[in-house]
Structures are given as structure tokens and as C-alpha cells.
């Protein structure tokens, strides 16, 4: 008993925190909501660092990936809560904090799930809270449209996924990944490949992989920046973690050869990388560019997974996440602070805003440069790890030569998207501000400044302290 309790301590603490925050709303203790949420999440973070590995029934597995993903998710949630506390007023408090906690909870469940039920639960928990976060600015038509598009597209993807899962259950008679894998390895009912593919749509959608990415640009552009930072990062960590587990346990080699799994992933990655890069350069809104960047980065991570037989491939994906998350949160936060009119991040409106807040501008540049993959920042090392794994596997095995093309696509996409990031930097720093802006800039709220500094520090540290890669590799392949 106590072992289960210990293993699940972060999830249980977070659920209790969620309940407490919801009740604090009912009890009209609104100003305490963030404090409650923050301290709860910090406790959960501590618990996740201390919690032992193990399994809970056949449903949740705290394996190497989950053990890495849980602290990462909770740490990101802490950052997002800190930022939200400074940027939102107390009135928003309980609901926003509760949605964020629910998103984090969903990510935790998804990341640890070894079973279709918790997987779907986690996905839905993330989706539902994401919808509400995206549609938050009730007065804004943009935000409302973003929320609505998110709901309808997400609903369709969830429905497809659930449909595939129910077929999978019917065919395999099991819901846990290992069980499904074992059943399918022995006895292969006919349409199981179709069921597997359809069931994975939900993950592809959470990862914003082409062709399930359509919602992302519209939603990211219209949604509040913190909502974008939340739905753009936490679900990705969770989806990659569970994808690794599902690929290694639920898809037996006798059913689908590893080479074709890797080919399919490489194909998805290539499409995502190229489509995102090409569309990013014609975007004229900073948050929209970040959306395309999210699509391209998802492509890179999936490319890392496509090179999975390579020992460092999963570590490359993990490192990629570690580089992507702080840079994305930092960039969006910086944009939110730089935008002269809240919630409007068109490049034209950002012109010259770097002069108003130079340090925020520098933080933005560091984060964007990392996303663009410039050395010596974390993003470079992440891209380099993926590239190296993909090329090594592609050169080593002729049946996987598709990985070579995907690696080429990664390079091309990196070059083109650097241009898009440059558009943002150029607008913020090198274009003159409109003349009428003479109003004083309010001081930076300390909470936001701290989050921004942490994101920049992480981006620099992961780039310079290269042993981080080795540490990841060791914890994933002890």
C-alpha cells in the first residue's frame, strides 16, 4: 500500500491541491488560490524527485522516462504558475490556477500511463483544460475563436483516437500496453494495424504533428500567451514520454517491423519540419511563428524517436524537450511583456519594443536563438543530438535510409525557420518604434522576471553544461 502511495505521491498531492484550489473559489478565498497552487505543485515536485520508481497495477508505470518527465512537467507548471500569478489579477486566480493544475495533472497521468484508460484520461484532462485556457479572454473574439477551434478540432482528434482504442481493446482483449503487445505478438487479429494507427491520432494531435497540426497556428495566435506556453509545453513532454513507452511495449516487432515504424515516424517528422518551416516565414505574428516552431520541434523530437535503435536516440528526444520547454516558455513570456497592447503580438505592433524593455528583449533573443538551434545554446545541442542519431542510423542500415532524407529536412527546416525567428528579433530590436508611444513602461513584476531569468539560465546552462546530455543518457539507459 505504502509503496503505491509513495510512487503516486506527486499525482495525489496535485489532485488534492486541485481540489483545494477549487474549493477555495467556492469559499471566496480567491487571493490564496495561487499560493495554494504553487505550494502544492512545489510539494508535488519535491515528491516526484524523491518518489521511487515502480508500477501501479498495470495502469501506471514510473519508468525511466516517467521519472524524468514528472519533475519536468511539475517544474514547468511551477514556472507557469509563478508567471500567471504576476500577470493575472486575483479574480482570475482560482480558475486559471485550477486549469493549469489540471493540465499538469493530465500531463503527469499521460506521461506515466502504461494502459489505454489512463492514457485517454490524461489526454482528455489536458485537452479540456487546454480548451478553457485558450479561450480564456472572454471578451476577445480572437481568443474565443481560438478556444472554439481548439475544442472542435481536439474533439475530432479525441474521438478518432478513442475509436481506435476501443477497437484495439476489442481485438487484443487487453488495455495495458504490455498486454496488448503480448497478445498481438502471438495472435494477430486482422485490422489491428489500423486500430493502432487510429488510436495514435490523439498523440499526434497533442504533439502537433502534420497533418494533425492545423489547430495550432490559429489557436496559438489567438490564445493568451501563458495559455500557449502551457498547452505548447506540458502536453509535449507527456506525449513523447508515453509514445516511447507505447512504441517499445505495445507494438510487437512481429506485427510491424521496426524499420517501418521508424519509416512512418520519419515521414511524419519530415512533413512536420518542412511544412512548419515554410509556413513560418510568411507568418506576421510572433505567437503564430512560435506555433509553427512548435510543429517543427515536434517533428525533430519524433525524428529522434525514429532513430530509436540508436542508443542515444531517446536521450536526444529527452534533451530536445529539456531545451524546447524553457525556451518556449521564456519566449512567450517575453513576448507578452514586450507587446505594447496586451495580447497583440503582430510583428508590426512589436516594432521597437526592445527599446522599452531591453533586458526582456535580450531574454527573448536568447530563447529564440535556442529555438533556432544556435550554438552554444541548448537548442543547438538538442538538434545536433537528433541529427547525429538520425544520420548514424540512416548510414548504418540501408532499409532506414529514409532517415537520411529526414535529417536533410531537419537541416533545411532549421535554416528556413531561423529566418522566421529573425523576423521577430528584427522587429523587436532593429525596427523603429511608432512615435506616439511615450507612455511610461510599468516595472517588470518580480515573479515574471524570475521566471524569465530561470528560462534563460536553463537555456544557457543546458547548452554549456554538456554533461547534461550524458546524465540523461545514463538515466534512460542505465
Amino acid at each position, binding site marked *: *500500500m505504502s509503496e503505491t502511495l509513495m510512487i503516486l505521491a506527486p499525482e495525489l498531492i496535485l*489532485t488534492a491541491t486541485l*481540489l483545494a484550489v*477549487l474549493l477555495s473559489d*467556492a469559499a471566496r478565498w480567491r487571493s490564496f488560490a495561487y499560493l495554494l497552487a504553487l505550494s502544492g505543485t512545489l510539494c508535488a515536485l519535491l515528491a516526484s524527485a524523491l518518489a521511487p520508481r515502480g508500477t501501479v497495477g498495470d*495502469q501506471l508505470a514510473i519508468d525511466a522516462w516517467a521519472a524524468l518527465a514528472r519533475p519536468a512537467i511539475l517544474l514547468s507548471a511551477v514556472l507557469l504558475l509563478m508567471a500567471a500569478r504576476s500577470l493575472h489579477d486575483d479574480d482570475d486566480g482560482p480558475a486559471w490556477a*485550477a*486549469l493549469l493544475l489540471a493540465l499538469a*495533472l493530465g500531463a503527469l497521468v499521460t506521461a506515466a500511463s502504461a494502459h489505454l484508460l489512463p492514457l485517454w*484520461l*490524461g489526454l*482528455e*484532462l489536458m485537452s*479540456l483544460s487546454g*480548451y*478553457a485556457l485558450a*479561450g*480564456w479572454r472572454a471578451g476577445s473574439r480572437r481568443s*474565443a475563436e481560438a478556444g*472554439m*477551434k481548439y475544442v*472542435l478540432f481536439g474533439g*475530432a*482528434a479525441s474521438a478518432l483516437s478513442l*475509436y481506435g482504442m476501443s477497437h484495439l481493446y*476489442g*481485438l487484443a482483449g487487453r488495455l495495458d500496453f504490455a498486454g496488448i503487445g503480448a497478445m498481438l505478438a502471438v495472435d494477430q487479429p*486482422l*485490422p*489491428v494495424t*489500423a*486500430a493502432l*494507427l*487510429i488510436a495514435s491520432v490523439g498523440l499526434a494531435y497533442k504533439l502537433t504533428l502534420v*497533418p*494533425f497540426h*492545423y489547430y495550432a*497556428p*490559429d489557436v496559438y495566435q489567438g490564445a493568451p500567451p501563458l495559455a500557449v506556453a502551457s498547452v505548447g509545453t506540458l502536453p509535449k513532454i507527456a506525449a513523447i514520454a508515453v509514445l516511447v513507452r507505447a512504441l517499445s511495449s505495445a507494438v510487437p516487432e512481429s506485427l510491424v517491423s521496426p524499420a517501418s515504424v521508424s519509416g512512418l515516424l520519419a515521414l511524419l517528422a519530415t512533413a512536420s519540419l518542412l*511544412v512548419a518551416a*515554410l509556413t513560418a*516565414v*510568411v507568418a506576421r505574428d510572433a505567437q503564430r511563428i512560435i506555433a509553427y516552431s512548435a510543429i517543427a520541434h515536434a517533428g525533430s523530437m519524433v525524428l529522434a524517436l525514429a532513430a530509436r535503435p540508436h542508443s*542515444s536516440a531517446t536521450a536526444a528526444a529527452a534533451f530536445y524537450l529539456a531545451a524546447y520547454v524553457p525556451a518556449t516558455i521564456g519566449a512567450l513570456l517575453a513576448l507578452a511583456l514586450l507587446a505594447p497592447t496586451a495580447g497583440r503580438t503582430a510583428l508590426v505592433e512589436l516594432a521597437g519594443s526592445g527599446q522599452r524593455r531591453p533586458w526582456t528583449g535580450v531574454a527573448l533573443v536568447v530563447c529564440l536563438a535556442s529555438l533556432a538551434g*544556435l*550554438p*552554444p545554446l541548448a537548442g*543547438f545541442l538538442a538538434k*545536433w543530438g537528433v*541529427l*547525429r542519431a538520425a*544520420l548514424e542510423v540512416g548510414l548504418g542500415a540501408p532499409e532506414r535510409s529514409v532517415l537520411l532524407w529526414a*535529417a536533410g529536412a531537419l*537541416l533545411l527546416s532549421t*535554416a528556413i525557420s531561423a*529566418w522566421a525567428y529573425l523576423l521577430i528579433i*528584427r522587429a523587436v530590436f*532593429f525596427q523603429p518604434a511608432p512615435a506616439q508611444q511615450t507612455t511610461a513602461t510599468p516595472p517588470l513584476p518580480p515573479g515574471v522576471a524570475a521566471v524569465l531569468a530561470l528560462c534563460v539560465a536553463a537555456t544557457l546552462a543546458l547548452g554549456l553544461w*554538456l554533461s547534461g546530455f*550524458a546524465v540523461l543518457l545514463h538515466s534512460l539507459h542505465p
Partner: protein
Amino acid sequence: MLIAAIVLAPVLAAALLAVAARSGARIAALVAAGGCALSAGAALALLPSALLVPETLTVPWAAPLGPDLALRADAWGLILASLVGIVGLCITIYAAGYLHGAPDLPRLFATLLVFAAAMQLIALGDDPWLVFIGWELTSVCSYLLVLHTRRPEALRAATTALLVTGLGGLSLLGGLVIVQQITGIERLSELPTARDHLLAHPWMPAALIAIVIGCATKSALFPFHFWLPGAMAAPTPISAYLHAATMVKAGIFLLARLHPAFGGTALWEALLGGLGALTVLAAARRLPSTDDLKQLLAWSTVLALGTLAVLLSLDGAAAMLAVVLLLLAHAAYKGTLFLVVGAIDHGTGTRLLPRLGGLARAMPWTAASGMLGAASMMGLPPFAGFVAKEQVKLAEAGWLASSTLFLSALALVAVAWWVGIRPFWHRAAEPPLAEQAHEGGLALLVPTLALAILGLLFGVAGAWIVAPLAARAAADLAGSAIDAGLPILPSTALQAASGFAVIACGILLAEQRERLARWLSLLPNGLSARLWDHALHAALAAGRAVVHVTQHGDLRGYLGVALLSGVALAGFGLADIAWTLPVSQIPLWMWPIAVLLVAGALMAAAARTRLAAIAGLGAVGYGIALLFVSHGAPDLAFTQVVVETLTVVLFVLAFRHLPELRAYALLERRRAVNAVIAVASGAAATALALAAETGTVPHLGDRLIAAAWERGHGANAVNVILVDIRALDTFGEITVLLLAAIGVSALVTAGSAPRPLLARSPILSAASRLILPLATLFALWLWWRGHHQPGGGFIAGLCVAAGVVLVAAARGGIAARRALLAPPLAIAASGLALAWLAGAVGLIAGGSFLFPHWLGPFGTPLLFDLGVLVLVLGVVVLTVEQMLIAEEGGT
């Protein structure tokens, strides 16, 4: 440790500047000069060791994957490192005078120092990734430095330069990774040992081409040479440092490093020889028609880089020695002339060749520097240029390379004449301009003269100091030793005569500038720049096309693609599966249900009003409920009916906020697309279902019913699974449900006032008072019997919620809210709390969270189910609340 100091000294100085950002320009310049001087000093101090055993430094950084901090100070690396340090020192002093009064000078110097450190990484890095890191950093620093003045034309030029070199950098990265994968070697210095293996590999050409592209972008080789003249928008000292002395040499430098591994292959010779020759031609074509002195220098740099590439394409130590010497000489004289042009610009306000003349009197020191630089560039003895030129003649070149080298020698003489001699000694074109000209002060003069004298020293002292070092570097690059004797003066009369003849021809040509320009204008011009622009536009157009076709903002299109992708996935998985249509096995009573389902779906699709569409969907829902009944699942059927009813009611409530459904005049094509998507989705689902039927399906039902009785002691398997066996999942699910409700209430904000649905009916109003208590009683009954018979908390919650909605419809939302006694969010949350409590009791009494614990007929699963009931009630009311309240004009 000296080797680390070469890289770290500029970094530390930059850090110092970043900390003391408010320091004055003078202090900043001093700090920057100190950083460069330390770096140069360390490099010079290491020179003797480079001749014996190169010093190395390896700090493991990201083992086991690399990169490591591996530095290696061999002769070739130290030559570049010393150049970076010495020229950097001159440049910082010059910049302090030249940019006096410009904004943000400390930032400029800090960037300059970071750039210098990055260059040292390229020079000394033995780990290819370290070199790449330096490589990319120099591109970024270059962007920032060019943009320092924020002039609009600089913005465009800097962006082009960054894009070209950035793209090339990635190409280089790809090539280096392939080489590393082929050879398994992580050190550049060890690469020659794997030469045979490397050259035999089928991917070698791809790797080499990728690397050459990378180096060509950095060193402005054809067809990427166009960015360099554009980058002249930078302040002149920056151009002198980046675009003449150091950064543009990086590509040549790295190619030379790779010469022992790739040199001598046909591809290597063809690539470098061809690109080099084309670069020389392209630059020579532009020289006579360029008026701006700075542009002239930029084109002559392109010319020199092309010459270096041609020399690199050759085999043998003599050619490599020529590369080393030319690189050194070029850095010195080109740096000098850039600084001279800067001084002219500073002293007269113009850089246009036709306007200048007769400046020698007003600017004697600058004129002297210009003369020294020009002499070296022309190849007069005993200057460095002469030494380099004589060595070039010794290289074993074919006719193509020889003629390219000859053309390049002529062109260099002409440029030297135009830049270093003509502005000072030619008759003044605009006398007032010449009279008003003035020298720019010591900060400008000293570095210029210092660089000019350095060029002289390289030549004079060449035999003793430079020669052994250059010979060692050339031997490393060629893989074979070479005699180190370098001439200072021509050794034979013939040699002297041929040298002076070339110079004389060059000066004669230079004097025919306008005529040359007229003739050359017949040749094509600016092709590669146009090609680049076309490529950029093509990328933009492709992006716009993709956006137009896919990212149009129309949700229907998005959903269509997503659905079709799902269909494609199903089709991919079903491709090689045969299924049968078991028409004969369908029982007779199934047909009417099927007809109901199909008719409902068709009605929904063809409906002209929302109500009709909802009625159609409702019919589908009830048909599914009938299917559940016929398969022995009354529970599911019951739930389905209630959910369906509630959904219809919700739809109807929501519709009052929406405008009338317009009959959109859909294009025929659009209709057809919609129909295809719908039919394809249906067909895929049908095929999947039929394929599943044909396979071996395990009988889950029997197993689950048995498990429910054994483990949960309940006859209602559905309920037992929900609240007992899989209670943890249900707990998660109700949490999700609560979140969904919060989300809906956040999303749904009623805009316009709703149209009235129906007149308030007094009978309904009276009935609703009665119905709510009855519904509550009925719900409790359902909850209680759920363990063994059809029923359960979920359906019970829905029943109470239906009662509340009825109250709302009859007497208004506020009345409904009053009837509830508590805010719906609190109700829902307390439901979750009840479920949590049930789990906690299980934890304390049974040992694990949600472990069932029974006391007679009362057990924690019942408590859990009660939690579900309360939560479902709260959730439904929370969802409809917004619409109900808005109807009354808000509260």
C-alpha cells in the same frame, strides 16, 4: 594553459564589459584592446612549440557523445590565431577613434570580443563540433556588428549575410556529421589517418559537397559571393576585421585543414578549382565598374578568396605554402587598405573613387600607409605580397589554374592602384574636397601604419620568423615536407622583370578604368544574387501556397483533412485485409434499427434547420440505445437515452442564442468534397468494424461479468467495474468531467439575448415543483440498486440534473439555482471530495486507495457512487448555467 588563454582572454574581457556596461567608450576600448593583446600574446608565445609538438588541451564536456573541449595549437591554427589577435588589437584602437561618439560602444566592443573568441575556436578547435560552434557564433556576431548602426540598408545586408552563412553552416554541420559517422573519428587532426576509408565510402561525395558549400558561404566563394559586398554597410573597422582579415578566411582555413583528408581527389579539385575560378571571374568582372572604394576592396577580397580556393585545389606542398603566405599577406595589406579607406571617408566624407584625388598633402600619414599597403598588394619586393606571389608562381598548376592566378595578380595590382595610390597622388578631381581633408588623429593613424609595417615585416623578416612556421603549416596541410627558404628579393633578373611586367600591365589596365568597365558591362552580372532572391521568393511563395491551401483558418477544412487522414490511416492498416459482408447473419429485428440509424444520419445531413438536424442526431442516438438493449446492455441503453435527451435539450437551449441557420449556397464542388469526406469516413469505420468481426475476437463480456461477481460481489458488471474494479479510472474520469464543465462555463458566454423558446406554461411550472423532488427520490433509488441491478451514480446524477433543467425551463434559471441551494461548482467539487473520501477510507481500512470496504450493505463503492452522482449533477448544471442565467439578463 596558454592555449586556453588564447580563447578565454577575449571572453573574459567581454564579460568585464558586460558587467561594466556603463563604462565610457575609452575604457571599453582599452579593455577590448587588452583582451585582444593578451590573446595575441598567448598565441605568439606558443609559436615555438608549434614547430615541435603542438600543445593540446582536452576537457571532456559531453562524454560519451562529444563534443569535447579539444583545442590543438598547431602551426596553421596559430597563424590564424595570431592574426585574429594582432589585427583585433589594431582594429579596436582604430574603432575607438573612428566610431567616437557612436551609441553603445561598450556593447560593440563586447560583441567584437565574442567574435574574436569564436574565431579562436575555429582556429584552434580540434573537435569539429567546437569548430562549428565558433563558426555559427561568428555569423551571429557578424550580424550584430553589421547592424550596429541600425541603418536600413545594413538591415537588409546583414539579414542576407546571416541567411547565406547560416544555411551554409548547417550544410557544413551535415557534412561534418557524415564524415564523423563514416570514419568514427572525433578529432580533425586525426582525420587524415582515415583517408582511405573515407574516400572509399559511397557517401563521401555528399559529405564533401556539403562541407564545401558551408565553407563557400563563409568565404564568399561563387555562387555565394554576393553577400560580402552587401555587408560593407558595416562600420569600416568592422569590415576590415570581419570581411577582410579574419571571418571570411574561416572557410578557406577549414578547407585547408581538410586538405590532407580530401585533397587530390577529382571531386576536390573540380569543386575548389571550379568555384575558385568562377569567383575570380565574377569579382574581376565587377572591379572596374565599382566606384565606392570600400566596395572595391570587398570585391578584391572576393577575388583573393577565389585565388586561395584555386590554390587549395592544387596538390603538393608548394601550393599549400602559397595558401599560407597569401592568407597572411592578404590579411595585412587588405586590413591596411580598409583602414586607409576608413580614414579617407573620415577625412573627406566620401569614398567615391571619381571624386577623390590629391589627398597626399592633407593626409600624409594615411598616404604613406596606403602606399605601403598598395606596394604589398601589388607584390613589390620586399613586402609580404611579393613573398606570397613568388610562392604562388611555384605551385604546380594546370592551364586553367595558372590563367586564373594570372588574372587575379593583374586585378590585385589594379585595385591596389585605385585604393592605395590614386586618391592621394592623382590630380584632385574636386579641389575643395582635397583642401578640406584632414587626418583623423592618432587612434586612426597608429593602427593603420602598424598594420602596414606588419606587412613589410612579414616580408623582410619572412626568411627568419615566418618561414619555418609557414613551412611547418604547409607541410601539415600537404602531408609532405617543404624547404623553408623564402626569398625577400627577386633572385634572377628574369624573375624581377616578369614581376615588374605584371605590375606595369596592372597599372596600365587600372588607368583604363572606364573603358574596361564599358567592355565588361557586356558580360552577365549579378546572376547569383538574383538567383538567391528568386530562391527566397520561391520559399516565400511556397509558404504562402501551403498557408493558402492548408492553413486558411476555415475549421471545416481542417477537420476534413484530419478526418481524411484518419481514413487514410485506417486504409493503410486495412489495405491487405479481406473482409466479408455477412448479410445473411444479420437477425431480422436488426434491420429496423439499422434503417432508423441510417435515416437519422441522412436527416441530420440534409436538414435545413438546426432543430431538424438535432432531431436526426437524436434518432441516431436512440437507435444506438436500441442496439445496446438488443445486445443485453440495459444499463448502457438507459444511460444513452438520458444523455441523448439531455443533449437535445441543451442543443435547443443553446440554439436560442444563435442566428437562424442560413442555407449557405455551397459550391457544388464543396458539397461533393463534403460528401466524399463523409462517405469515406463512414466506409472506413464500416470496413474496420467488419474486419474486426472477421478476426478472432476474444469474448470479453463473460470474463468481465465473472470478474465483477468475484472481485466486486455485484451483479451489475458495468457498475461494479466503474465504482470498484476500475474505480481509480473513474476517479480520473470524473475529475476530467469537472474540468470540462469549468471549461465550458469559461468558454460559453452568452452574447445576444436569446429568442424566447416558448411561453411560460403555468402547468409546467406547477409540475416542475413536484418533479424535482420526485426526480431526486428516483435518483437515490437508482443509486442504491446500482450495485446489482441497472442503475448507478452516473445515471442518477443525470436524472436530478434533468429535473433541474426542467425547473429552469419552466420557472427560469434563477429559480433553478435557488432550488439547488449551493453554487454548482461547489456541488461538483464536493462530489469529487466524496469520491476522494471513499478512496481515503479504502486506504486506511483496506490498505490501498479506493480499496472497497463494506459494512453490511454499506460500502465505500456506494459512497464513491454517491460522489459520482453529486458531481454529475453539479457538472450538468454548471454547463447549462451560463445559458440559463443569460436568458434572464444576467444576475
